[in-house]
């Protein structure tokens, strides 16, 4: 079974691998940070917001304060996640699923949990 964990990421509950929703490329074990399976780039904010005047404050961001870090699917180049971080700031391990729910789910019906509300 495949579960959409984010807009762009699927967790395959049988292979226990992350997959790109767009091209099904695998991004490593669900037990790991999916970002480890991505291609990663850091970009000067001026590539996203056009500087409109001269000077440091130019309606874009100052690259000495912040960068755009992009996480791509190596299979299709989809942009899976973006972080705006100060240069060199550790990347965020944002999603760490409790995998017992997949093992439970492989036997149990999830709808009993869903019907509670």
């Amino acid at each position: 079974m495949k579960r959409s964990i984010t807009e762009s990421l699927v967790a395959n509950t049988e292979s226990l691998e992350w997959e790109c929703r767009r091209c099904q490329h695998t991004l490593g074990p669900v037990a790991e940070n999916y970002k480890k399976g991505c291609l990663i780039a850091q970009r000067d904010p001026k590539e996203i917001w056009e500087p409109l005047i001269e000077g440091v404050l130019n309606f874009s961001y100052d690259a000495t304060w912040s960068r755009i870090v992009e996480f791509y699917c190596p299979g299709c180049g989809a942009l899976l996640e973006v972080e705006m971080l100060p240069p060199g700031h550790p990347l965020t391990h944002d999603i760490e699923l409790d995998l017992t729910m997949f093992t439970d789910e492989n036997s149990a019906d999830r709808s009993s949990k869903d019907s509670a509300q």
Partner: protein
Amino acid sequence: MSLDQTSLDGPEIPEYMRVRPIEISTATMVQWLKPEPVGEAERSWVEQLEPGDYEIYDEKLKNILDEAREIFVRSGVTNLLTAGDLIVAIYTANGDLANASAGTYLHCVTGCLPVKYVMHKYYSDPTVRVEAGDIFYTNEARYGGIHNPDQMAFMPVFHEGELIAWTAALAHQPETGAIEPGGMPILARSRSDEGMKLTPIKIGQDYRIKRDLLDMMVNFIDRSPRMQEIDTRARVTGADRLRVRVQELAVAKGNDFVRGLLRKLVLEAEESARRRIARWNDGTYRAVAFADTIGREPALVRGMLTATKRHDSIHMDFSGTSPENDSSYNAFPHIVAAHAAIFLFAYPFHDLPASNGTLAPFEWDIPEGSVLNAAPNAAISNSPPLCCIVMTSVTLALSKMMFDSEDRDKIGAPNGNMGSEIIFSGTSQHEMPYADLDGCTLNTEGQGARPDMDGVNAYGFPWAHAGRAPDAEFYEDEYPFLRLFYHLRRDSGGFGKWQGGLGTETAIAPRHVPTMFWSSIGKSTHISVASGLFGGYPSSASPGIWVSGTDLWEKMNRGDQDLPEDAVSVAADRALQGEYLLEHLTRLTRIGYSGDLIVQLAAGGGGYGDVLERDPDLVLNDLKNGQISSWTAKEVYQIRYEEDSLILDETATEETRDSARQTRLKRGKPWDEFISEWSKLSPNPEALKYFGTWPEGVAETPVVRI
């Protein structure tokens, strides 16, 4: 530090009125957010409710609350009433919030705590006591408030000699008698710089406000005495209208019915919230958010959240958050919970009672010494602007937790979360002293994009979603300035498959008077606090612009046609003579002279999803409407179109987007390679002055406050 260890709860207090004792300190007040245990009597009142009673009278209470809110708004003068920075609320006899009309959900957290404090500390104290007709009042964060501009009136509701409930009305008021005008002094370094702070006190008896205590407050609020007098009365009027209606309900249905109904609301809120949380995926969800100011100077401040969800409860751990500092950008744990509530009550639990029961599934772990759990003598008047880092990190972590559930429609990228406002004071053209803020930018930030739609442009005030911008021209009547422009700001929403809503921009110029004191609050000048979600980009940069010594009046008198119409043209075309200053959006109090131009920007919301997945027709629409530039359409969204007709070239767009994906694959590096290069970088040292060690954020020097 413990402010007060005494507890006077004695056997004479019936169980349903008791508040469990906690250590009273800034670090521990958040514990009173948990609902009080339900005793036998209360349980039986809940059980005595007939089928249908809860549904009918829950609705009746909502109507009562809405009525009181309307009366409150119409009775007061502060602009923040129009903006919706208020709450009217009904509590159980021991201070649990049954429901509220908000306004701002902040006070769903903070309103409970002073009520519990009074019950805990003063109910049995013969020098205070709680009696029918009493009026209590407070604005002190140490006793459960957020910051002292938020003043709250609260009243016990008695019927047939029994205490059955409490009611409250609270609104932000932009003056506190601090070292600077406006109620949120940027230069405050300790609590002693922040003006009037009233612990919960009784300001009225027999349903009348005591003149001596009102005079005391008015005396404190010397820059805006009229506002203090009128708005104190407005708060009491709001609380009292609720008191009357709850009493009427008791007359009609009996005390046990009212007490059972109020408790059932708290219990139902908790049960419903837990049922909903149980259907989200268990796991650990992390988010980081950055502010770029501590008010008096630009500085990087990090908020870090690890939200661990197990079955029906969520542990919110803010370890890794920046250390406290000697500015007014600090907070206490209950203030953090209050800022989480802004998201929780508006998105995942929007249909549940605005009760502290709804928040019972959450545990709060906020390290002492961090900027979110500062020492009791810290200045905290700018805790709301600081807590944008809480609003953003909670929105991100919970949205990731909820996506794979039937509650996907209740998530979104963070809202603008910048809190942009110009604060002004002086003597007006009507020769009245004034101190107020411009609600125009404050109430028109962009909403974060959602899984199936763009964020709403100028959606509101992220601290009080329902907030409305006041009439832009109201200010010109009341205060001495002209508003040159006020409209949506192009390219301000975060780009993505779904685009963040746009924020606005405005420019004002002092007029009719020689001078006006002004300052401004804002952020996202150097790093955005409105992050994107699932591949969406954050909101755009927001500099502050000030042009002094202009020829604005001469140009207007001549009828010149080249007056600037937006922030970019002010800075780029420089049609006005004068000295131009581009700076951080948070600006210290200064003197503005007649004709100076003050430009203030509001932030857009975060974007959602990959920009290359955005429907090209939507991109073209945005271009036609002026919401994005042609540069953005081509360089970010990668669409191709006929320049004159703005007709889409589908084939070229598809090719361009495919090639943009190939460029990403060439640009991107595998994890290890990326990390080895990336981790060698560090930010501008100017950014790290208050950050602690890089990148851990551990305090290097103790904070000294005088």
